[in-house]
Structure formats: structure tokens, C-alpha cells
């Protein structure tokens, strides 16, 4: 009996009932739905963007192969370079301000003040409001001349500003809105980083007579390095993709003063139906973000190794 059961087809375990077979079956099966989703809605669009970027296409009718023509156009397209400049000005103002602001707030709510819980909630609350709604609220507050912001700066003797209506202040307005909306999120990340620093370090430094500033400079900042890198990186990547407030508040205006690259891509694709050109712009934007992110990682790593 024993000799026959091993080989007989009736009693042999089916392959998917073996340990290995089940692992494979369930392994692939569980992975499949998400993998199909990623393939169709993430990987295919990436490949598609590259493919379409070599074509002239309005979305309707035939795609016309035109080689690297789109990329050549892009190099000479002043509006594109202008959009990159605006994106860069925005990013390199927004990221440092966000960094300082959120670190400051995190330090503030880490001091054991009365009502810290309330403060933390209040600082974080704007993050729960979408950028679209934030923009709508600030459009209202930035009205000229009767908006509440102009009234408040009036108390301090400043002239009312046109804010969104003026090429000099439109981008500043956008920076204010996005800072207001997102500073709470980075604050929470910094707070988590601060709370991970052992209190004993500070106590030891105090015993040695270190001032508050030197404790901050030599304990807090170095130990916050991983947190700082994370905040810098995600705020950078987010800033480079600025779109919602531009669409809602300024439509890229006045006089293209707030046309960021993503907004320019949107215009090319969905207003002028230049899908091929918009794809080429997307590819270039991706490369720029990638290079800067790698650079940032590099800088922080070299710094940490010193």
C-alpha cells in the first residue's frame, strides 16, 4: 500500500496544494491586481509620455511622427523657459520658508507651553483644507482694497496691495497661500523628529553650560538631519509641481507672472491640444525633478558623512 500511494495520481497532492505551489499561486495572485493597475495607469503612461513626445498630435486624428522636433521647439520656447524660471523662483522661496516656518512651529509647540494641544491642532488644521479651498479663502482675503489682509497691513501703515492683480505680488500671494496650507504637515514631521532626541543630551549640555542657541545648533540640528532631508525633499518635489492654486487664483496671470511649468503643460495639453508637445514638456520636467532630488540626497549625504 505505502509504496503505491506515493506515485498514484489519485492521492498525490496537487501542485498548488504543496507548500511551494501555494506560495507561488497566492504570491502572484495577490500581487496581480495592483500590478495590473500600476502597469496600466503608471508605467504605461510613462512609456506613453516618452512615445507621444516624439509625435505631433492634437488628440484627435492621426499621430504624426516628428522625431525630436518637440524637444527642439521646447529649447527655443521662451514661454517654457519663463515657466521654469517662475517655478524655480517659487520653489526656492517656498522650500526655505516652509523649512524655517515649520521647524519654528515645531520648536514652539515643543516648549511645554499652556494649551500646546490647541496650538498644534490650529497650526495643522489648514493642511486638512484642500489647496483649492485654501486658494478660494485667500482670494477673498486678498481682495483689493477691502480684503482683510489689506486692512491688517493698513494698521501697520502699509498701502493696500493689488496682490493677485499685480505682476509683482501675484507669485508672493501664491507663496503665502501654499505656505499657510502646508506648514502644519512639515511641523508634525519635525515634531516627531524633535521628540526622538533623548532629553538626556540636552540635560548634559545644560550641565556643561551650553546656551540655548548652541544646544539647538549642536544637538537639535544635527540630529534632525534625516527629518530635514525628508521635509526638504517632499516640499521640493511638491513645489515643483505647483498647479491647483495657480489654476484657481491666477490662471497663470497677470501677464504670465505665475505660469508655472505644470500649469504651462496643462495649457498646452488641454487648452491648445498640443498633446505631443505637452508630453515632451512632461518628460523634461520629470528629468529636472529627478536630477534635483538626486542632487539633494547627495548634498545631505555628503554633509552627514563629514
Amino acid at each position, binding site marked *: 500500500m505505502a509504496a503505491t500511494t506515493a506515485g498514484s495520481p489519485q492521492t498525490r497532492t496537487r501542485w498548488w496544494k504543496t507548500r511551494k505551489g501555494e506560495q507561488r499561486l497566492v504570491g502572484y495572485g495577490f500581487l496581480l491586481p495592483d*500590478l495590473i493597475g500600476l502597469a496600466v495607469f*503608471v508605467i504605461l503612461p*510613462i512609456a506613453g509620455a516618452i512615445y507621444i513626445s516624439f509625435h505631433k498630435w492634437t488628440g484627435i486624428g492621426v499621430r504624426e511622427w516628428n522625431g525630436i522636433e518637440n524637444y527642439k521647439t521646447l529649447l527655443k520656447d521662451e514661454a517654457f523657459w519663463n515657466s521654469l524660471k517662475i517655478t524655480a523662483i517659487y520653489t526656492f522661496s517656498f522650500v526655505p520658508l516652509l523649512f524655517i516656518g515649520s521647524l519654528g512651529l515645531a520648536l514652539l509647540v515643543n516648549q511645554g*507651553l*499652556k494649551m500646546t494641544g490647541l496650538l498644534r491642532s490650529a497650526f495643522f488644521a489648514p493642511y*486638512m483644507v484642500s489647496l483649492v479651498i485654501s486658494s478660494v479663502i485667500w482670494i477673498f482675503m486678498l481682495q483689493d482694497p477691502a480684503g*482683510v489682509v489689506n486692512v491688517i497691513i493698513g494698521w501697520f501703515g502699509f498701502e493696500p496691495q493689488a496682490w493677485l492683480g499685480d505682476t509683482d505680488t501675484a507669485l508672493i500671494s501664491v507663496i503665502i497661500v501654499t505656505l499657510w496650507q502646508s506648514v502644519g504637515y512639515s511641523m508634525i514631521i519635525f515634531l516627531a523628529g524633535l521628540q526622538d532626541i533623548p532629553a538626556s543630551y540636552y540635560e548634559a549640555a545644560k550641565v556643561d553650560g551650553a546656551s540655548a542657541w548652541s544646544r539647538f545648533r549642536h544637538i537639535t540640528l544635527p540630529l534632525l538631519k534625516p527629518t530635514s532631508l525628508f521635509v526638504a525633499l517632499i516640499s521640493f518635489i511638491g513645489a515643483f509641481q505647483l498647479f491647483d492654486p495657480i489654476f484657481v487664483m491666477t490662471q497663470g496671470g497677470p501677464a504670465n507672472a505665475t505660469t508655472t511649468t505644470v500649469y504651462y503643460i496643462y495649457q498646452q495639453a488641454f487648452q491648445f491640444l498640443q498633446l505631443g508637445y505637452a508630453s515632451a514638456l512632461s518628460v523634461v520636467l520629470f528629468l529636472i525633478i529627478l536630477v534635483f532630488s538626486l542632487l539633494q540626497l547627495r548634498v545631505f549625504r555628503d554633509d552627514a558623512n563629514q
Partner: protein
Amino acid sequence: MTTQTSDAHAGAHARPRVKKPRKPFSLKRMFRPERLVLYALAAVSFFILAGPLLWMLSSSLKSSDTVLANPPTALPTEWRFQNYLDVFDQVPFGTYLLNSLFVATTVTVVALLLHSMAAYSLARLHFPGRDKIFLLILCTLMVPFTVIAVPLFIIVDWLGWVDTYQGLIVPMIPHAFGIFLLRQFYLSVPRELEEAAILDGASLIKVYWHIILPLSRPVLAALGIFFFLANWNNFLWPLIVTQDQSLWVVQLGIQQFRGQYASNYNLIMAASTCAALPTLILFFVLQRRLVEGIKMTGLKG
């Protein structure tokens, strides 16, 4: 007031019962110069960050003449709750809210299920090509959404999904970061529980459903809040993929409403309040979980 006076006489410094081992309230400590500076900074920050939200709320209850009055009044002179009814009367705001709720909830639930399955498979099961697949998934993390928006629209159009719920929902489900985070979590779960169940003859699907899923409740909750928030607040994709007003989510609705009622800021603020309230309530109810979630997604991400 009357009950408190007796306490106030008892001692200027000590507060009756201090629950946590905090430093007891002390006016002396509070009024030290450096403390005063901190309190002043806190007050200014509070004014700047919470002020606009309170201003939105207050303005949503004002009449259209007083909403832009100069000098402005902090509170409405007459409280017009009618504004909220007007918003729902004049635009299908209820539909927008329901669309947002439906889209955000569906994406969140389906994504959590699919991601946890995929993450379990990647973290625990053995099959050829597993690590290569994981690497591929990680690579997609680097590509920001705005970069693929245009070709994604072309694919969705080709599928015939423009102006449909599936067009709004399905492309938002795949998300490498969710898979990555859950995989990290599953790698940290001790294997003993699963192995005992497998020795008892439980199938892998049962192990996943009865052991892994219940264990991952906290991490799923944290991730779920984020997915819901991100999808509720999403603007670019709904803007691209829906023209049909009956499919509009609330972010599109509010943007359109602002354009139409350009001068009626009291109504616009009432609409904004309605659109912001669900996520603000979510925040105040689930605050602790949300903060935990940020720390988790932030620091280990």
C-alpha cells in the same frame, strides 16, 4: 463662575487637579520674559494659521453687504444661516459632496485591500521574480503624478472612461507608496503567529484574512486617512477627466462656484466651509491617529 471663585481664593498658583505629571501652572513661570516671547509668538502664529479658517466661518454667516465691509467686523452683525441653504439651492452642491465622498471612499477601501494583499505577497511569500517586481514598483515612486497626467488622460480616454466614475476612481488606486509602506510594516511583524496557523493547516489566504489583516488595522487606518484626504482634496485629475457637471467632485464645484458668484463672498465662504468641513471633522475626530500616520509615513517613508 461662582463655583470657581472659591478655588481662586485657595491659591493663585496651584490649579486644583493636575492629571498629567506636568509642571503645575505658575504665573511666575508664565511671565518670565522668554516665556512671554514664546506666548506672543504662539499667539501670532495662531492668528495667522487659524485666523483664515475662522474668518471663512464668520464670513459665511454675513450678509453680502457686510462681507467686504471696511472696516471689517470680526463677527456677523446679523447671523445669516440662510447663506448655506442658498448655496445648496443654487448649485447641486449636495451632488458634489456625495461624488467626492463616493470617489474618495471607494479609492481608499479598494486601495487598502489591494495594497495590503500585494504587500503581504512581497513581504512574506516566496516566488520567482519577487524582488525584481518590488524594485519595479519602487521605481514608479519617483514619477510625480503631474508628469503622467497627460498620457494618463489619453489612456483613460481610449478606455472610454472620460466622464465616468471609473475614470475618476480606478486610475487613482495604484500607488507604490502604499505598497511600500505596508510591506515595511509586514516585514516587522513576527512570523510566529502565521507559522502556527500554517502548521495547523490554514491556507495562506486564511492566514492573510484572519491574522495579517487584523494585525494591520492601525497601519491601514493611518494610511486610509491619508488616501481619503488626498482623494477628497484632489483637483487636477477630476479637472482633466470630468466635464459632465453631475460627476463633479466638490473641489471642482467650489472652483466653478467661485467663478459664477464672484461678488457674493458670503455664499462662496459658505460653500467653502461645506467643502472643508468633512476633512476638518475627520481631523478633529482622528487627530491622534493622523499624527501617528504622519510620523509613520514621514519618517520611515
